[in-house]
């Protein structure tokens, strides 16, 4: 078990408003962390900052990923190093087919590792295998990226992309929202299948529901830009029973 991610005193803002006010978090390989908290506490900002969204400005603090300075890296290099963000609101890109999009993404990562571009047959096989893992319709992957997808299809498509890219650190931002129970099971099964000793996952959610299907090793409560409580899996169950109030106003 090696250290993968080390966040120290992270402050970040958007449009002159400070959202993150000193986050400290360490994630080791093989672990699943759940970050919970009420709306507006900064959960999605944390995900955006980790993936390098240029809309957010980091004002203080450091993030080390595999001992490299993550904040110095462009979003694409973070992805190539193995960070994957499953978007809360996946973006529709009309005119760019899923096939071309995925091929470009896979090949960029291979290029970064000094590998040859994937062959057409290997790529199609990879697409088929991962599509089947998520029970996705073959018609979906021949369409434009997320265009006209239902909410559930978009979320499945995020996990499909995660499976294709096989990241070291996956950040799932509200992946459970907008999913019915069947879709949730499929998505959770996909995430569990992809989890290994080498990689790690950060689950961002404000319901305990997802945690019935994906068991976290650590649970953190984020409130007003800080982690106010950390604990084991039991913390999530307690939160489900008691809400956040007892932590916010003790």
């Amino acid at each position: 078990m090696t250290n993968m991610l080390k966040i120290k005193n992270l402050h970040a803002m958007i449009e002159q408003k400070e959202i993150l006010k000193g986050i400290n978090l360490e994630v080791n390989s093989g672990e699943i962390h759940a970050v919970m908290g009420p709306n507006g506490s900064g959960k999605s900002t944390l995900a955006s900052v980790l993936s390098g969204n240029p809309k957010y400005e980091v004002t203080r603090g450091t993030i080390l990923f595999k001992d490299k300075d993550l904040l110095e890296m462009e979003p694409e290099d973070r992805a190539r190093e193995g960070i994957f963000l499953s978007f809360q609101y996946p973006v529709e890109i009309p005119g760019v087919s899923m096939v071309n999009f995925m091929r470009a993404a896979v090949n960029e990562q291979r290029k970064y590792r000094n590998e040859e571009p994937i062959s057409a047959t290997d790529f199609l096989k990879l697409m088929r295998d991962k599509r089947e893992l998520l029970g996705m319709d073959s018609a979906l992957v021949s369409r434009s990226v997320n265009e006209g997808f239902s909410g559930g299809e978009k979320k499945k498509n995020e996990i499909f992309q995660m499976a294709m890219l096989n990241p070291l650190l996956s950040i799932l931002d509200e992946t459970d929202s907008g999913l019915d129970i069947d879709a949730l099971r499929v998505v959770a099964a996909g995430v569990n299948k992809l989890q290994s000793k080498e990689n790690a996952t950060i689950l961002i959610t404000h319901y305990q529901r997802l945690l019935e299907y994906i068991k976290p090793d650590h649970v953190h409560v984020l409130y007003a830009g800080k982690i106010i409580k950390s604990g084991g899996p039991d913390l999530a169950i307690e939160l489900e029973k008691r809400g956040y109030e007892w932590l916010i106003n003790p």
Partner: protein
Amino acid sequence: MADKPINRNPITTMIEQQYTDLFEQFRSELDANSVVGLNRHRDAAYVTFRQIGFPTSRQEDYKHSNIARTFDTELGLNLRNIPIPVNPYDAFKCDVPNLFTHLYFLINDRYYDQIQPDDNLPEGVFAGSMQLFSEKYPEIFTAHYNKIADDSDNGVVAYNTMFAQDGFVIYVPKNVVIEKPLQLINILRGGVDLNVNRRILIIAGEHAQVKLLICDHAVDDVHFVVTQVTEVYAEASAQVDIYELEENSEKVTRLNNVFSRQKENSHIVTSGITLHNGYTRNNYHFRLEGEYAEAHVGGLAICDKSQHIDNFAFLDHAVPHCTSNELFKNVLQDKATGVFCGKILVEKDAQKTLAYQTNRNLCASEEAQMFSKPQLEIYADDVKCSHGLTTGQLDEDALFYMRARGIDQEEAKLLLMVAFTRDVVDLIRIDTLQDRLTTLIDKRFRGELMRCGNCNVCK
């Protein structure tokens, strides 16, 4: 409707003077190197041109394109038809299977007839030199040449009619269907700066079908000012596809004018693709004058550096139950300028008209400029007309989404720009051309498109 210049600018009058002098002085050479069918239109055009001159930016419809200025330079005209040594059939061998079997060339404004293509066209079809057509089919030629090319408010058309000596004709008789597309390659060659004036005439009889791809290529690195007037006739139930692909150098000014007339149930599909250019003005005038006629008009320009694209489309619904659909898109980078004006006229009795217009523009740099204007004049009350206009930048959210998957920022921009052009390419009804164009557009954005004499469509 025409903006008549009241006080003609003395500078533009001087510019025009050079050309009217030239016309008067070399009139006999002009006529001697052309045919009576074209010569008989010169005088009237000359009178009109002296009245209205070249369009200038004082006119509303030319606000962002000062045409007169483009003629303010020393330009030669090859009026005596001195041959330009080139065998295009060697230089432009086509190896795309099952696509361009019928291949023709205009070298500047002359039909290249040194080699007759082995084209196996259906019986009765004519495809070739305008001079030859006017002599072989004098009645058909007279009934169509310069009949719909309205020069009353367009000095470029009058100018073209004064000087045009040859061009290209397709005549497809009633009930004849040409399965394979025809391709006309316009090659610009010259050792000095040149003015080139060419004509194209397309006549599709009742139930006839023809598809034509016209490619423009400048070979030599001199300035060319090209005027082109195309007249298209689609008789009842005819189907005509015309795709124009411009791949000229930055030193080329292209002043293109397309006029079409459609009878009942006819379909016209056109698309003007500007892949590489200098200064381009495309005037389109589509007139739907038979019920249930349809016109589908596409336009796409990719411009960078200081390139200029101006598309002016006039859709004239003269009778009921017709459909028109316009889709014009521009991708502008660096200091490029784009102009679009979409005029739709629904005449008084043209009930049940469906007329749709869309203009979308992507300004991918701070300095690129786009001027766009929809102009709807509707005199019937039971119609469906719509227009949509957007000018914007690349979608930041989509860019970040792609970068978050490891796709390089430049590559992501490129994919988004290619995607933006997709629906114009989809309008084209020749599958192999769609594929070819997709590749060319991708290369254009990557800066890999070698702008040279080689036909990128064929090679």
